[in-house]
């Protein structure tokens, strides 16, 4: 009996320690360092003194930084909406495909993850640049119908950034939605149909309300990384389409202003936590209800 308890304790520590250490070393400690930098002042070239000042945050509220932040939120928001509009029918399609096709389609969705983000982004450049595959295609088509062709400049603007972000983040929308549809009890649709509901009413009053938790998960999974994305706007964006992460990078590198860069980073962190807290508050009721069900 004692031995059993002892081995349970061992298993407990073995499973408890590694993730805790991981979180401590790679999340909590770096975050505290950045957090404390954000309340510090720069003294000389490399000296930073923690003096508990709010100057960095006050500076972050300057119009120039604030507008970049708002623009980033806008770009991430548009990305999320587009991802949802494409992801919803795609996930629904995969979930209702015959079982043999389901796994093939899922692999097709996940496969791009096997390729490095940098390479995928360069591939997008190869497709959309002035002398890229997309323009080649258009040119071929224009020749076919005898229309003079001028290559479109598709890269280095906000549209290109959004396009790139949608491309990268679409699987994050599709997977939770797919999981939601898979868990969906299809008899409910038959019940609604039997009671006289139209196809549209099935969607609006049965499907969407029931998979709302999956929709919110998908949106958060797209919005948060899109908001902090650095590489995509750096490579696909023009001089005016930089996002908050690019500004932060410049504070750390070019401007060598770590306290201010930290403050901007922390603003992003607070924003992310705020979104997660909001979701928790919204869904807490649901969880409570589920507990009641067990009682």
């Amino acid at each position, binding site marked *: 009996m004692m031995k059993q308890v002892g081995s349970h304790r061992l298993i407990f520590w073995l499973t408890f320690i590694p993730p805790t250490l991981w979180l401590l070393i790679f999340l909590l400690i770096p975050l505290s360092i950045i957090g404390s930098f954000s309340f510090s002042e720069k003294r000389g070239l490399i000296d930073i003194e923690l003096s508990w000042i709010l100057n960095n945050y006050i500076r972050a509220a300057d119009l120039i930084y604030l507008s970049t932040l708002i623009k980033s939120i806008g770009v991430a928001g548009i990305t999320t909406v587009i991802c949802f509009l494409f992801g919803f029918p795609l996930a629904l399609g995969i979930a209702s495909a015959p079982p043999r096709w389901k796994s093939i389609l899922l692999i097709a969705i996940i496969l791009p993850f096997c390729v490095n983000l940098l390479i995928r982004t360069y591939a997008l450049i190869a497709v959309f640049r002035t002398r890229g595959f997309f323009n080649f295609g258009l040119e071929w088509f224009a020749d076919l119908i005898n229309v003079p062709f001028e290559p479109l400049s598709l890269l280095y603007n906000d549209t290109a950034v959004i396009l790139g972000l949608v491309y990268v983040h679409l699987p994050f929308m599709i997977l939770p939605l797919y999981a939601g549809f898979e868990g969906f009890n299809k008899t409910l649709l038959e019940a*609604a149909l*039997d009671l006289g509901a139209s196809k549209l009413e099935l969607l609006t009053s049965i499907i969407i309300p029931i998979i709302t938790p999956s929709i919110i998960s998908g949106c958060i999974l797209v919005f948060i990384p899109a908001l902090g994305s650095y590489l995509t706007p750096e490579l696909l964006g023009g001089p005016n389409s930089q996002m908050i992460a690019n500004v932060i990078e410049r504070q750390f590198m070019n401007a060598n202003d770590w306290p201010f860069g930290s403050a901007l980073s922390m603003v992003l962190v607070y924003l992310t936590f705020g979104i997660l807290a909001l979701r928790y508050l919204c869904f807490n009721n649901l969880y409570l209800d589920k507990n009641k069900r067990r009682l």
Partner: protein
Amino acid sequence: MKNPIIKIEGITKKFGIKNALEEIDLSIYEGEFFAIVGPSGCGKTTLLRVLAGFEVPDSGLLFIDGENMRSIPPNRRPLNIVFQSYALFPHMTVLDNIAFGLKVTGVPIKECYQRVKMLLKLVKLSGLDHRFPHQLSGGQLQRVALARALVKRPKVLLLDEPLSALDAKLRNEMRQELVRLQKSMGITFILVTHDQQEALSTADRIAVMNNGRIKQVASPTNLYESPSNKFVAGFIGSINLIKCEVRQIEGELCAVTTGLTKDLFSIKGKNEISVGQSYLMGVRPEKIQLTKLTDIDQYDNKLAGIINNITYLGRSSMYHVKVSGDENIVMNVSMSHSDRSENIDLCIGESVLMHWTAGSALLLEDHDS
């Protein structure tokens, strides 16, 4: 009888190479409580789904209230279903669940809620309007599902194994409740179930299905007392079957021999039987009496045997008796404890005499058509 509310003509449905439904012909009349019973996989659920419009038959016609349903989708058919799993909308309250069918067909909100309140009272759920499905018990969920289907005042209510998720006591209560609702509302009920007890105790008429075919349609009494074939006899209640050969026909009764004894057995015959042909003699367990082996000369339809096993069932016991003459035949005899005569010791290994009255055995076709 009244008009058939549902008329099925030659409906066939295949899944792959398996025939789920084969040439089904069936008429169900207005105001009837009709039951479809059969073992799982017999096609009863497919038939229900064809009626509801979720499955399209390969051939055949379906009329509901005289209207051909061929091109009518499920959401425009004048019938509603109580699903086996209830299929209540988890994100809606009891009130909204029941009102859903009315709202989507454009019934004014005020009338909607009036009708819902009325139905809640009818199924004895008043006061639970604002609960969510996960806050209800199994019996309550069942009542909500019923109310949700009935609130639309359908011409036909389909019930797909509605009581299978309830415990035995609750199931009994709900059976009576279903009959009460059906009689008071006058709606045609079609109950699909694998439980013959449930069908016998609720329905006016029963269709017994097996392997995609309807084996017999009759009232519960007729189905039990005069099953038309081996399958029905065995599925509705239990029955002991012994091979026999017809020797003589005397009006209602006929005399048969079995290979077991030299005796003639007197059996309730049926139409179109011929002398000299083999049939099955069927005897229900509760029609058989057990007595001492020494009483052998007092009775006519009798078989000797040894008690092989006893199953205690509370009110009665089931005696499994090995027939002398053929070790492979085990007769099931049901005897209530109060009927048991005092002068006989019924225990395993005891030799006994089984006997029954002349008309209580049935003559059945040997082959299963």
